[in-house]
């Protein structure tokens, strides 16, 4: 009997934590369908009718429509470039023999020990000197082109596990390096590439500080900076329900991607932490 009671008690503990995650999200959704008057009068009261118009207003007046396009461009292009860079580099670093390979590999791995917080200023002045500030293409370049240590480690270990005989026999059959990469290694590495891709997508979509520092023109804001700015404007407009509707719109892509790929996301995110 005692065991059953404590068992239910522990079950409640799990439930309460689940509630702390769900409650704020549902609360945002709930309030976003009210009018401002209803929202100010009583936060618990039901809305008299569901105000879907808040979402329309958020899309146009808060500039979310425009920022969604900016985000698609920035995230899409960065993702494409960075996946290409990661995959071909993982191939070059794990399956081709060349002179400077281990040296360059260690130089790239240095970045695992760099916290990054100390280069906010110098990275900004560098981008400014290259005339890449206030430009989505500048952001894409910064996010997409440099080879990343984490991606290289993950994809590299994946490619190392593929048997060597695969490329060797293809080379004997007269295949070129490009063919081997495209026809053999690339398809077999797909699971690893997808993991990195989703992981990168979440990171790029959520990125705030980079665009916040580098982009000053509101027409070029990605969605995260746009929401920050919309919130700052509310001090003068006090149109909170529209802001909440904007928040819900911002969350929707995250929820969709998470529901579809939660296993891959959790796997990718915790990969670095599992090893002591």
């Amino acid at each position, binding site marked *: 009997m005692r065991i059953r009671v404590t068992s239910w008690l*522990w*079950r409640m503990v*799990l439930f309460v*934590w*689940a509630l702390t*995650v769900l*409650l*704020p999200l549902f*609360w945002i959704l709930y309030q976003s369908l009210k009018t401002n008057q209803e*929202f*100010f009068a009583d*936060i*618990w009261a039901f809305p008299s009718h569901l105000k879907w118009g808040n979402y329309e207003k958020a899309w146009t007046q808060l500039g979310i429509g425009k920022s969604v396009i900016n985000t698609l461009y920035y995230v899409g292009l960065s993702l494409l470039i960075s996946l290409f*860079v990661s995959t*071909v*580099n993982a191939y*070059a*670093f794990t399956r*081709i023999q*060349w002179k400077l390979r281990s040296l360059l590999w260690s*130089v790239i791995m240095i*970045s695992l020990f*760099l*916290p990054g*917080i*100390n*280069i*906010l*200023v*110098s*990275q*900004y*002045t*560098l981008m400014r000197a290259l005339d890449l500030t206030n430009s989505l293409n500048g952001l894409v370049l910064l996010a997409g*082109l*440099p*080879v990343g240590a984490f991606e290289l480690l993950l994809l590299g270990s994946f490619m190392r596990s593929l048997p060597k005989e695969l490329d060797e026999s293809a080379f004997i059959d007269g295949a070129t*390096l*490009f063919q081997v990469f495209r026809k053999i290694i690339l398809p077999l590495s797909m699971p690893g590439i997808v993991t990195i891709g989703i992981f990168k997508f*979440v990171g790029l*979509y*959520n990125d*705030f500080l980079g665009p916040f*520092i580098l982009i000053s023109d509101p027409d070029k804001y990605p969605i*995260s900076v746009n*929401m*920050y700015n919309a919130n700052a404007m509310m001090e003068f407009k006090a149109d909170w329900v529209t802001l909440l509707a904007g*928040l819900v719109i*911002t*969350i929707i892509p*995250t929820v969709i991607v*998470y529901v579809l790929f*939660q296993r891959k*996301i*959790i796997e990718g*995110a*915790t990969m670095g*932490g*599992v090893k*002591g």
Partner: protein
Amino acid sequence: MHFLKSARFQKAIFLFIVVAPAFAAYVLFTLYPNALSIFYSFLDWDGIGVKTFIGWDNYIRLFQDPFISRALQHNLILLVTVIPITLAISLVLADLLVNRTFGENSFYKVLYFFPNVLSLVVIALIWSFIYDGTFGLLNGLLQVFGLGGEHNWLGSKSTALLSMIPLYVWCYVGFYVVIFMNAMQGIPKSLYESATLDGITHMQRFTKITLPLLSGVIRVGTIFLILSVIKGFEYMLIMTKGGPGGSTEVISLYMFNLAFGGLNLGQHFYGYASTIGMMIFVLLVGLKLVVDKFFAKDSVEY
């Protein structure tokens, strides 16, 4: 011979097209700014005008600047609260999810992790609404239970910094639940079975077997959390801008404001901000070494 030659040529082309630009970009955008920030830390520079080399002056200023010690105190408060609370909650939740067979467990694991994929701005704005003084969720809940509920949590000096603690814990717990679950599932069942025969309780099993075996993972988790807490100033930047009265200004935010804020300063301090960046860098590496040393002795192998 001809085959070898062309294969070699292919390789050179491939490496030149593939490795060279990505590596050059890495050196330019990651390594070079790190070197540059060392150089900047010795300058008096507002970002536009003349760069004046002032030697160690900025470093001396670090020790005389009262805002530095205040900001570090705020960091310390967050570190000593957020880390143990996060680890404790995650360990308990992970143990429950692994060792109790409730039907909803697999759903909970996915749900708990969800804050990790939410955008930082979204989290910051959600919590701003939770803490709001007039229409906040927290005040609403307090009113339902008749416990007041008029307080402006982020607007008053006494509660603003403390209000950040639940936010951080909320963000981090899901990640560590998964990390600890993976580690717990890696513990051999045989270890538990012999203990169960000896009539050990759930609680003893948790404290006597699970926790010691997890010390390595907990160490890694602690280092991760230190990094995240010290680096993560964006919540304060978005929610309070360091206020009210500087009560939520942590060290990274102070650095950020010196360089980019210019709100009350009327001027940017790129040199001094870089010096603070160097200090944070040293701090992070130092803390990592301390944690490594502190935990290294009692890590367990099985």
